[in-house]
C-alpha cells in the first residue's frame, strides 16, 4: 500500500533583495515527509535550511511554491490562519532555547499549552523529558541541557502534528547534545510525532529515517535510511 505523505514541499523558492543583489535562499526545493518520520535536514550555514524550516513552521512565506501539510496548503494562509497553524499544529525547538526568563520551567510549558485545544498532560510531558524535579526553577537556574528539555517539553505539550528543531544541539556540549537527540528520538517513536531536525552536523544525519542534504538553497540529495543509528552511538 502506497503511504500518503504528511508534508509536501513543492517547488519552493525564497528570494531576498539585498541592495542590488538578489539572494536565493531557497531555489526550487521539493520533497515529501511521511507521518512519524524522523527527518534530518543537513547543510552548512547559509544553505537555506533555516529559511525552509521557517516556512514549514508558518513563520515566513515563500516567494513561490507550496507547502502542503495534512492536505492543507499553508503557503496560501493569511496571517490569522498562520497563527492558528502555529498554535495547534507545530512545535518549535530553537538553538538558544528561547525560554521566557521570568516564567518557571513548568510555566513556560503551560504558556504554550494553554492556548491550544488538544494538549497533553503537562506533568507527564515534564516527566517524559526528565524534569519533574526541576519544574519550578527559572531558566536562569537551569543548565543549557535542562533549558533545552524545557523547550522540547514546550513543543511536545501542544500535541502538534510535527516538531521542528533548529540546531537543537548547537549550543550544547557533546554529551548533553546526545541526550537531547535521544530525547527527540524517544518522543518521535513513543508518541509517533513527525520530527524535523536541521543541523550542520553531518554525524547527526545518521540517526534520521530520511536525510535531506542542502547547499546554496538547493537540495543536493534525499536519502532514505531504513536502518538509522541510535543516537547514543553517534559521535562527533
Amino acid at each position, binding site marked *: 500500500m502506497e503511504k500518503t505523505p504528511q508534508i509536501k514541499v513543492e517547488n519552493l523558492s525564497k528570494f531576498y533583495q539585498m541592495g542590488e543583489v538578489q539572494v536565493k535562499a531557497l531555489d526550487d526545493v521539493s520533497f515529501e515527509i511521511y507521518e512519524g518520520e524522523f527527518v534530518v535536514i543537513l547543510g552548512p550555514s547559509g544553505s537555506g535550511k533555516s529559511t525552509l524550516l521557517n516556512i514549514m513552521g508558518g*513563520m515566513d512565506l515563500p516567494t513561490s511554491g507550496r507547502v502542503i501539510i495534512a492536505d492543507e496548503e499553508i503557503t496560501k494562509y493569511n496571517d490569522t490562519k498562520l*497563527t492558528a497553524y*502555529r498554535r495547534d499544529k507545530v512545535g518549535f525547538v530553537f538553538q*538558544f532555547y*528561547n525560554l*521566557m*526568563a521570568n516564567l518557571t520551567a513548568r*510555566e*513556560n510549558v503551560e504558556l504554550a499549552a*494553554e492556548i491550544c485545544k488538544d494538549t497533553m498532560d503537562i506533568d507527564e510531558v515534564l516527566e517524559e523529558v526528565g524534569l519533574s524535579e526541576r519544574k519550578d526553577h527559572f531558566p536562569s537556574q537551569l543548565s543549557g541541557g535542562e533549558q533545552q528539555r524545557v523547550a522540547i517539553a514546550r513543543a511536545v505539550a501542544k500535541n502538534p502534528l510535527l516538531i521542528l528543531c533548529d540546531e537543537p544541539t548547537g549550543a550544547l556540549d557533546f554529551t548533553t547534545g546526545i541526550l537531547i537527540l535521544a530525547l527527540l528520538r524517544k518522543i518521535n517513536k513513543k508518541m509517533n510525532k513527525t520530527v524535523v531536525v536541521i543541523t550542520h552536523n553531518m554525524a547527526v544525519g545518521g540517526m534520521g529515517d530520511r536525510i535531506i542534504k542542502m547547499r546554496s538553497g538547493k537540495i543536493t540529495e534525499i536519502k532514505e535510511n531504513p536502518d538509522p543509528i541510535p543516537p547514543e552511538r553517534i559521535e562527533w
Partner: protein
Amino acid sequence: MKKLNKRLLRMIKSSKGQFISVVVIIMVALSIFISFSTTAVNMRNAIDYYYEETKLSHIHVQLMRIPQGALRQVESIEGVTDVQGRVSFDVPLKTDDEEEKVRIRIISLPEGGGKVNRLYSPQTIDEITQGNAILIKQFAEARNIMPGDIIEPYINGREHSLKVIGVASSSEFVYLMENEQTMMPAPEKFGVVYVTEEFAQSTYGYKGSYNEILIRVKDESMIDDVADELDKRLDKYGVKRIIKREDQLSPKILSQELMGLDMMAAAIPVLFLIVAGIIISIVLSRMVSNDRMAIGVLKALGYSNREVLLHYLKYALSIGVTGSLMGIVIGLLLAGVLSEIYAMFFEIPLLKVDIHYVYIIYSLFLTSLFCIASGLMGARHVLGITPAESMRPEPPKSGKHIFIEKIGFFWRRLSFSWKMVIRNILRSKRRFIFLVMGLAMAFAINTVPVYMWDSATGMFYIQFGQFQKMDYIIGLAKPMNEDVIYDMKGLLKGGKLEPRIEYPFEISNGWRKLNASIIGIPRDTKFYEFRNEHDKEVTLPEKGIFITEYMAKALNIKKGDRVKVKNFIPGKDDMYFEVREIIKQYLGANAYMDIDYMRETLTEKNMINGLSVASKEDLKTKLEDARNISSVSSIDDMTKTFEEYIDVMLLSINIMMLFGGVLGFALIYNSTIISIAERRMELAALRVMGFDKKEIFWMLAKENSVITVIAIFLGIPVGIGMIQGMADTFNTELYSLPMIITPKTFLIAGLSTLLFAAIAQLAALKKIHNINFIDALKSRIS
C-alpha cells in the same frame, strides 16, 4: 492565572521602580482631579441649596434713603416677587483691649426674619426684641461670644448695649469681608449684627425709612430688566449702587473660587497624565525592543499579534488602574480635607462631603484611555516583529553621523566623552524629543508658583509702596465741606493730608458696563503715582479720566475713547469723559479724576467724603470716637494681614514645586534606567576596558544634564504661556496679577528642575552598581 498574566506580574515586579514612579504621577493627577471636582461640585450644590433655602436676594440696592411706603413702587415692577427694606451701617465695637479695632455692620431684620436674606441657624432663635441682637456665626466664633453676652457698639458717637440672643449664618456673608478692599476675611475684626428694624432706624436716624432694598425676582433671567427698571424708579431716592447677585461680594468671590477649582481640576491632571503617557510610551517601547526575541517566540508558539500587543498594553493599563484606584481613594480623603479648608474661609452650613461616582468613572475612563493610547504608541512595534527574524541576533543599531558634527569648529573642540554623550542623546530621536517635551513641561509647571509668589508679593508692594503712598484712608460718614481738612490738621501732630472723593458709579461703553468707584484726588497728589501700560509715569489731567487696565479690557476701551458715567446722585446728569490714560492697578479696579473736575461734573462743589493721610500716629485709636468719621483704614494693618496670608501661599507654592519636581524625577529616573538597561553590553564593555562605576555614572549624568538644560530653555516659552493663562484666569475686579517675569523666575524653576533630575539620577545609581559585566557580555537571554 494565565501564564502571560503571570509574566506580566513578574515584569512589573522586576521594574517596580519605574512602575511606581508612573503610578505616583497618575495617583497625584487623579487625587487632584477627584478632590477638586468633588469639592467644587459639593460646594456648588450646597451653595445653590443654601441660597434658595435662605432666599438670598437677586438684586441688592444701596441708596441714600427711601421711605418705607415707597417700597410699593418696587413691588409693582414686573417679575419682582419679594421686596424687603433694611437699614445697614458700619460702626465700631467696644472691646476689652483698647488697642484692638473691631468693626461691625448693623443690619435691621424685619419681624419674623423677613422674606429675603433669611438667617440660617440649626437651633431656633427667639424673636429679636428691642435691645437684643443676633450675631453672625463666624464673628461669634472668632471672638468667642455666646448667647447671653452683651455687646456694645458705638452708634453715631453713642455707646449702646445689645444682648446676644442667638448665633446664625447668612447666605449673604458666606465669605465675610468688610468690602472689596479687604483681601481676606478677618472674622475677629469684622462682624455682622442683626437687630430689630426699630432699633436700627432710631439709633441711626432713619425713622420710617431704609438705606438698602433686597429684591427677589420670579426668574433669574429677569434680573437685568428689573435692575434697569429699578434704576429709573429709584433715581429720586439717591441710588448708590444696584448690585446683581453675581456682583455681590460674597457670591462673586465664591463663584470665582469655584471657577479656579474647576480650572485646576482640569489643567493639572491633564498635564500630569501627558507626562505619565510620555513615560509609559518610552518604557514600553524599550520593553518591546528588549523582549524582541520573547515576542518572536510567543508568536512562534501561536500567540496572535492581538494577544501579544494586549499583553504589553496590560502593563500600561495596570499602571493606570493602580494609579487611578490609589488616586481615587486619596482624592476622596483629600476632598474632605479640602472642604474643611474651604469651611475655614467660607461659611456654608449645609456643606457635605458627598461622593460623586460620575467623577470616579470619568477618571477611570480618562486614565485608561491615556494609558492605552500611550501604551499603543510605545508597544506598537510588537506588530512589526516577525518570529523568523526575531530569532536572529539583532543587528547593531546603525551608527550615524549627527548633524552637530557638521558644525566642525564646535565638534572638533569637544572632548571624546562629550562627543559620546551627544551621540548617545541623539541615538533615539523620538525618545529624546519626548523626554525634552516632558521635562520642559515639568519645568514650566515649576515656573508658575515662582511667578505666583513674585506677582502676589509684587502686587501688594507695588500697590502700597509705589502706587499708593498714604498711611491711612479716612472715610467721612457724609459729604462735608473741604474745610474739614483744617480741623483734621489741627488734630494731627504733623503729617500730610489730601482731600478725596470716592463714589460708586456705573461706567459704560455701549452695552458693556461695570460698577466701580471713581476717586477724585488733587492733580498734584503726593499719595498716588500713576503708571500707564508702558510703565511710564503719568499725572492726572485737568479734564478727563484715568481707568485701570482691567476696566479698559472689560469695557473694550482704548486711550482717547469716551466712557459714559451714570450718576446715581439725585439731580445729577450722566456724563461722558475722555479716557486720558489706561493705568496699572493690581488691587481693586478704580477710575481716577482730578478732584476739582470731578466735583464740577459729578458731585458737589467744595464737598469731600474722605481724606488720605500720611502720619506715623495711630489714627485708628485717635479717630475711633470721632463723629462724622465712618472708617479709618490703615495700610499697615493691610500689610500685616497680607503677611499672614503669605504663609498660606508659601505652602501651596511648595506643593506646586513638588508636583513639578515629581514629574521631572519620574522622567529622568525612567529614562536613566532605560538607557542603562539598553546599553548593558556597552557599559559592561566600558567596564571591561577599565572605566569605573563613577565614570559611567558621570557619563549618564552628563547626558541627563544636557537633556534637562535643553528642556529648560525650550520650557521657557511654555512657562510664559502657562503664566499668561494663570494671570488671565485670576484677572478680576478685585485684583489682577502683574506680569512680573524676570530671569530669576526661570532661574529658580530651572534650579528646582535640575535638583529633582539630580535626585533621580542618584536613585538610578544602584542599577549601575548592579551591572555584572561578565554576565552582560555573554548573556543572550532576554
